[in-house]
C-alpha cells in the first residue's frame, strides 16, 4: 500500500510536466487553431537555454526560470510573425506540417552541435536533498515541480478565462473582424498568445533540466504523449488539458508499478478509448 502512495506521487510529478506542456498546446490550439508540433522542440530549447545561462553567463536556476521562457517565447513570436501567420485560415494540416518541419530542423541543429547523450544540469542548491515521508523519499526538487506547475497552470487558466485580456483573446478567435472593429490589434494578440504557449513549454523545459539530461531529443520523446493528453482532454480546452495532464501522469505511474512493459502505451490506449466514446475529448465541445 505504501508503494502505491509513492507511485501516485511520482505520477503526479510527471503529470505536472504533461499539464504544463499540454496547457501550452491547448492555448495555442484554442486561440490560434494551430496544431503546434514544434512544442517539443521549444521545450528542449527552454532546457538548453537554462544550460547556457548557467554555463556561459553564470546565471543560475532561479533567474533562468524567468529568462528562458521569455527568450524562447520571443523566438516563438518571431516564428509566428515570419511563418505561422501566413497559414491562418488554411487547413490545420498546413500548420501541423510547418511546425513539424520546424521541430525536426531545430532538433537536428541542436543534435549536430551537442550530440545525443545530453549535458548535465545540477539541481539548485536550495532544492537539493529530500524529505522522508514515511512511505517514500521525496526529493525536494520534485515536490517543488508539482507545486510550481500547479500555480502556473491555474494562473494561465485564470488569465484566459477570467480576465479582460483573456476575454478579448477568446473573442478574437471567435470573430476576429468584429474584435478588430473595437480597435483591438488582433494579429499582435495572436502573436503574444503564441509566445505565451511557447514560453510555457520553455518553462517546463527549465523545470525538467535538473531531472533529465538536457538532450536535443528530450522534447521529441515527450511530445507524442502530450498530444495524446490534449486529445483526451479535448482540443483547446484549458482546464481539460490541465486536469488530464495530471490524471494521465498518475495513471501512467500506476501502470509503471503494475505492468511496467505497458507504461509507454497506456496513454494511447486511453486516447483510443476516449475517442471512440467521446470524439471531442473529455471536456471538449463539438465545433459548430
Amino acid at each position: 500500500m505504501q508503494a502505491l502512495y509513492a507511485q501516485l506521487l511520482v505520477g503526479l510529478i510527471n503529470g505536472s510536466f504533461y499539464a504544463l506542456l499540454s496547457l501550452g498546446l491547448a492555448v495555442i490550439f484554442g486561440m490560434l487553431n494551430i496544431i503546434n508540433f514544434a512544442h517539443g522542440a521549444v521545450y528542449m530549447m527552454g532546457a538548453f537555454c537554462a544550460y547556457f545561462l548557467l554555463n556561459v553567463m553564470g546565471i543560475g536556476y532561479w533567474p533562468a526560470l524567468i529568462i528562458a521562457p521569455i527568450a524562447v517565447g520571443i523566438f516563438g513570436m518571431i516564428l509566428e510573425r515570419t511563418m505561422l501567420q501566413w497559414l491562418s485560415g488554411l487547413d490545420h494540416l498546413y500548420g501541423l506540417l510547418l511546425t513539424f518541419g520546424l521541430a525536426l530542423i531545430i532538433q537536428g541543429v541542436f543534435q549536430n552541435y551537442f550530440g545525443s547523450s545530453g549535458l548535465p544540469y545540477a539541481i539548485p542548491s536550495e532544492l537539493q536533498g529530500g524529505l522522508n515521508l514515511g512511505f517514500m523519499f521525496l526529493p525536494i526538487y520534485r515536490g517543488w515541480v508539482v507545486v510550481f506547475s500547479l500555480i502556473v497552470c491555474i494562473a494561465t487558466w485564470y488569465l484566459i478565462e477570467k480576465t479582460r485580456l483573456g476575454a478579448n483573446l477568446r473573442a478574437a478567435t471567435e470573430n476576429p473582424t468584429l474584435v478588430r472593429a473595437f480597435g483591438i490589434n488582433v494579429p499582435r494578440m495572436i502573436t503574444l498568445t503564441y509566445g505565451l504557449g511557447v514560453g510555457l513549454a520553455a518553462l517546463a523545459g527549465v523545470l525538467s533540466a535538473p531531472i533529465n539530461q538536457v538532450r536535443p531529443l528530450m522534447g521529441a520523446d515527450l511530445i507524442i504523449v502530450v498530444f495524446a493528453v490534449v486529445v483526451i482532454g479535448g482540443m483547446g480546452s484549458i482546464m481539460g488539458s490541465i486536469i488530464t495532464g495530471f490524471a494521465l501522469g498518475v495513471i501512467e505511474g500506476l501502470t509503471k508499478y503494475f505492468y511496467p512493459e505497458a507504461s509507454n502505451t497506456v496513454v494511447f490506449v486511453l486516447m483510443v478509448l476516449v475517442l471512440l466514446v467521446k470524439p471531442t475529448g473529455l471536456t471538449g465541445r463539438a465545433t459548430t
Partner: protein
Amino acid sequence: MTNRISALLLGTALVFGACSAVLAQDKTIKIGVLTDNSGLYSDLGGAGSTLAAQMAVEDSGLAAKGWKIDIVSADHQNKPDIAVNTARQWIDVDKVDIFMDVLNSGVALAVNNLVKEKNAIMINTGAASSDLTNAQCSPNTIHWVYDTYMLANSTGQALVKAGGDSWYFLTADYAFGHALERDTSAVVLKSGGKVIGTVRHPLNTADFSSFLLQAQASKAKIVGMANAGGDTTNTIKQASEFGIVAGGQKLAGLLLFITDVHSLGLKVAQGLSFTETFYWDLNDGTRAFSKRFSERTKSKAMPSMVQAGVYSGLIHYFKALEAMGGNSHDGIKIVEKMKSMPTDDPLFGKGSIRADGRKLHPAYLFEVKKPSESKGPWDYYKLIGTTPGEQAFRPLSESVCALVKK
C-alpha cells in the same frame, strides 16, 4: 582431331583460369557503417564510427597499393526493419562487402541473419547481446568489442565479491536488456548471490522514478542497470535524486560508455564501476589514436569502445584481404582467413578470433574518478582490474554455437 579438341579445351580452360585469376585480383572494397546516427546511441556510435572507418582506411595504406575503398553510412534509427531494408539494398544494389558498427542488439540480430543469407560480412562492434556468438552465431559474423556475457562476468563477479550479494535489475525491455539481465543473473547466482526482483522499462524512457522506487523498496544491495545510453544516464541521475546510493544501495552500470560518463559529469558519475575493453588513456597506442580521432570530431570527443572497435576490426579485415591478394567478396572465406590470423593493433593490443566469431582481448574494470582526481576533460577512469581475454568471455565449453566443434 582429338588432339585439336583437347587443345581447344585446354585453351578455354586457360582463358577461364586467367579470368578467375583476374577476378581474384579484384581490389575494390565497399564498407557499410550501419549505426544510430540520430537517436540515443548516436554519440557512442554514429558519425564517430564512420570517422573511425575513414581513419582505418587512411592508416591501412591500401589506397597507395592500388585498392579502391568506399565507405557508405546510414542511420538505422534503432529499428530492425529499417536496418534490414537498408542492409538488403546495400548488399543487392550497392555491393557492400562488410557491415561495421551495427549497434543495438535487436538490429544486430536481424542484420546477422541477412548477412549470413547473402554471404556478406559483419564485424559487430556496437551490439551487446552475446547471442551473436552463441545461439545465433554465424560464419559471416565477428563480434568484436564486448558482449553481455563478458560485462556480466567482469562487473557482476567483482561486485558480488565486494559484498553485493542481492540484486535488483532495471532492464531495458528488448533483446539487449534481456540478454544482459540473463547473463548477469547467472553470474550473480553462480557467485553465491541472489536476484530479488526485476523491472522492465521501455527503451528510451525519460522518467525512472517509478522504477527506482521499486528498486529502493526491494532493499537489494545492488541495483543493476541492464540498459544503455540515455536510459542509463537518466537512471543514474535520478537515482542520486532519490537517494538510492545515500540510502546504502549501490548502482551497478552493466554497460556504460565514456560518452555517458562525459554527459553525466564526474560529480554524478563518480564511484561507478563498470567494464569496458577500450579506454583512450590506457597506453601510448590508444592515446595517439584517440588524440587524432578527437581532433577530427566536432565536439572534440574521445572515441568510445564501439568506435575504436570499428577501426580495429577494419584494420584486421584489411590485413586478411591483403594476405589473400584481393577481395573475393566471399564472406565466409574472408572471415575464415580473419579467424586464422592473430589480431594486433594499437587500440586493443594482441588478440585472436575464435571459431564462434568471438574476438578475444582483455576486459578492464574501471571506476569513475572523483572530480578532484580528474586532471582535465575526458580524464575519467581509474583502472581497477584486468581480466585476460581467454577468461573474460564465455568459454567454448559452454557454447551452443554450431560452429564450435566438440
